């Protein structure tokens, strides 16, 4: 008897691009009739491939995926948006059927593709715990047994008999996650649900996931949060454009993924010595710039709100007594958002001798910017004077990505304005404020 609990064999899933069906029953029947008689699809253009009674292109969300998962393994699934990760989980959880191939499973399986699935706003917290638990596959008796524990985990004891529509969004997701966290399936599929709650609650969720893993359950965990993947998963697989391109121990797979994603977008380190797009006296020269994420990995993709470092190498062409280092950031519309300067924090560097080279590092505690691409412009200037020694205008692009730092991240979209701020909103009656 082998230890394998999930076996995925030649799994493929095709999706239809464009319109589904021929659009009219009349045409559908025509196609169906032709097929019944063994004739070719009468609506199909010459040279086009026949995809059933449909017109249009198919896209393979998954193509010939093969892998096995052993009992007790915590497997991370990584890949860029649209790589097919969620499709894989949907097939595993029976939400949709594969186009070809098979998945064989031992034991029962529970999926958490979203927290709060089936929550009804008019029902109370208590009723929703039961409903949601049952939807996720728990029996009523089982929920009753764990009820106290769930409420305690969610930290909403006094609101449990209030309809959830009156909950704050934080309370809502906490309750939802609490229900999910108390499932006891043999195999658990988790898709990005850790992106809920404030930092403290997230830490608690990660802890709970860790506990679940330690109980010997098998977990498949899809996330863009490489930190969480590394922390929780022993093994990882990487999906790229529907194909499994790497599997093995998490560290290796994740590192390779990060360096590849960096490469796709240009390197996370750049020589600037010969860059022409600059101004300044040239007495000091910025010769290299690099970005490091909070794991200390060179990476130009930074989570919004997550700390990161900018590393700048400067060469001195003449003797300089005191300098100020600065970083400007602009969005793609060339609007300047930030100008960080070392003298702002009372850091003035120098003196430096001609011909020396130095590295300067700025630790940035996290930027509340909307996801997107931003431009970094480093500069070096004279302290106490107006002279700019060097200013590189297009030194490097930085990609700010949503990685689950903020509670409300799931709904962040580029709005009007430049900054994203995670704030709390409340409603109250007029006289209560006065």
């Amino acid at each position, binding site marked *: *008897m*082998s230890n*394998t609990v999930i*076996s995925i064999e030649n799994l493929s899933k095709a*999706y*239809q691009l464009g319109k*589904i*069906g021929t659009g009219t*029953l009349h045409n*559908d029947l025509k196609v169906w009739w032709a097929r019944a008689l063994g004739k070719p699809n009468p609506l199909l253009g010459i040279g086009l491939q026949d995809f059933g009674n449909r017109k249009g292109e198919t896209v393979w969300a998954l193509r010939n995926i093969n892998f096995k998962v052993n009992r007790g393994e915590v497997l991370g699934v990584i890949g860029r948006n649209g790589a097919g990760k969620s499709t894989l989980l*949907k*097939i*595993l*959880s*029976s*939400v*949709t*059927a*594969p*186009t*070809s*191939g*098979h*998945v*064989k*499973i*031992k*034991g*029962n*399986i529970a*999926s958490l*593709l*979203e927290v709060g*699935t*089936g929550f*009804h706003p*008019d*029902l109370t917290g208590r*009723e929703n715990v*039961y*409903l949601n638990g*049952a*939807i*996720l*596959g728990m*029996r*009523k008796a089982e929920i009753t047994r764990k009820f106290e524990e769930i409420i305690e985990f969610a930290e909403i004891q006094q609101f449990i008999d209030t*309809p959830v529509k009156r909950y704050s969004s934080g309370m809502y997701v906490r309750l939802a996650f609490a229900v999910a966290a108390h499932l006891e399936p043999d195999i658990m599929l988790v898709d990005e649900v850790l992106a809920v709650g404030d930092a403290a609650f997230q830490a608690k969720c990660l802890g709970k996931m860790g506990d679940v893993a330690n109980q010997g359950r098998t977990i498949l965990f899809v996330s863009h949060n490489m930190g969480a993947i590394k922390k929780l998963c022993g093994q990882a697989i990487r999906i790229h454009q529907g194909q499994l391109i790497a599997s093995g121990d998490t560290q290796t797979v994740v590192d390779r993924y990060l360096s590849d994603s960096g490469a796709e977008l240009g390197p996370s380190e750049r020589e600037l010595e010969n860059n022409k797009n600059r101004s300044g006296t040239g007495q000091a020269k910025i010769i290299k710039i690099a970005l490091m994420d909070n794991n200390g990995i060179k990476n130009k993709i930074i989570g919004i709100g997550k700390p990161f470092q900018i590393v700048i190498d400067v060469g001195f062409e003449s003797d300089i007594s005191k300098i100020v280092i600065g970083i400007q950031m602009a969005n793609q519309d060339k609007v300047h958002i930030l100008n960080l300067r070392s003298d702002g924090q009372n850091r003035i560097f120098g003196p430096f001798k001609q011909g020396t080279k130095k590295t300067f590092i700025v630790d940035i505690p996290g930027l509340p910017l909307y996801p997107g691409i931003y431009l970094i412009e480093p500069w070096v200037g004279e302290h106490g004077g107006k002279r700019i020694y060097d200013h590189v205008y297009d030194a490097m692009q930085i990609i700010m990505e949503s990685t689950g730092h903020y509670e409300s991240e799931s709904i962040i979209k580029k709005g009007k304005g430049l900054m994203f701020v995670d704030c709390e909103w409340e409603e109250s009656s007029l006289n209560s404020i006065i």
Partner: protein
Amino acid sequence: MHSDSDVQFAFEKWDKDIGPHRNLFDLRLRELWHSYDLIMLFVRRDFVSTYTQTILGPLWYLIQPILTTITFTIIFGGFAQLSTEGLPKFLFYMSGVIIWTYFASCLTKTSDTFINNAQLFGKVYFPRLAVPVSIVISNLIAFAIQFVFFLVSMVFFALRGFEFHPNWLILLTPLLLLIMAGLGLGFGIIISSLTTKYRDLRFLVQFGVQLLMFATPVIYPVSSIPPQFQKLIMLNPLSAVVETFRYAYLGEGTISVGQLAYSFGFMLVAILIGAVIFNRVEATFMDTV
């Protein structure tokens, strides 16, 4: 070239095999039975959510059939002078309306299963049939409330000296409800499965049900129509149920064992076809809905 472990692997026992095609008759009824708790929670949700923040609450279950019955009494009984086989008009129409309403609401509500639950179905798997089955049970609660009102009305009319004859056939009530539930569910899930592709059917259901009522002896007794049309009306599997219900509680109606058996058989076929189609659509409807 097989290694030992490969061979061993081939003989392993798996609990679940997810493939592109399911067996047509693998209806997963055991799974459905195991989600008994879920079904009851859905019923509760429907009941609570429909009437929170309404003033009259579950009384709404009564208002609709009472107003319908009064309207029928005035228009068909009063103006049109349709026969009610000598029964009090109010009771005659009421009996037809409540049993008919049970069928009609089962049908219309289950026919929206996929469209109304697309969001939920897209995120988590549970036996999909739990949703339409819970709707049928929810409607049973509504029927029960209306039924109690019907019984109260019977007592009221009896005390006023009207003549009608309830008889031992009222023992058939559960069977009659089963047939109505089964027909509503069966056709409902067939329509629900087809609406994932053709939304038009939703509109068809809306007035189709209204028209179907006129092909069912709700506002007239079968005995009052010309014999050549009686056969036609009795082809409708709902007719025998309405007539039997009326006969059981009021003592007038055209009934036969054969007719009931026909309705029952019709119901079984509808359920079977419905479950097979539903099961088939369920597998991939998320991609097309």
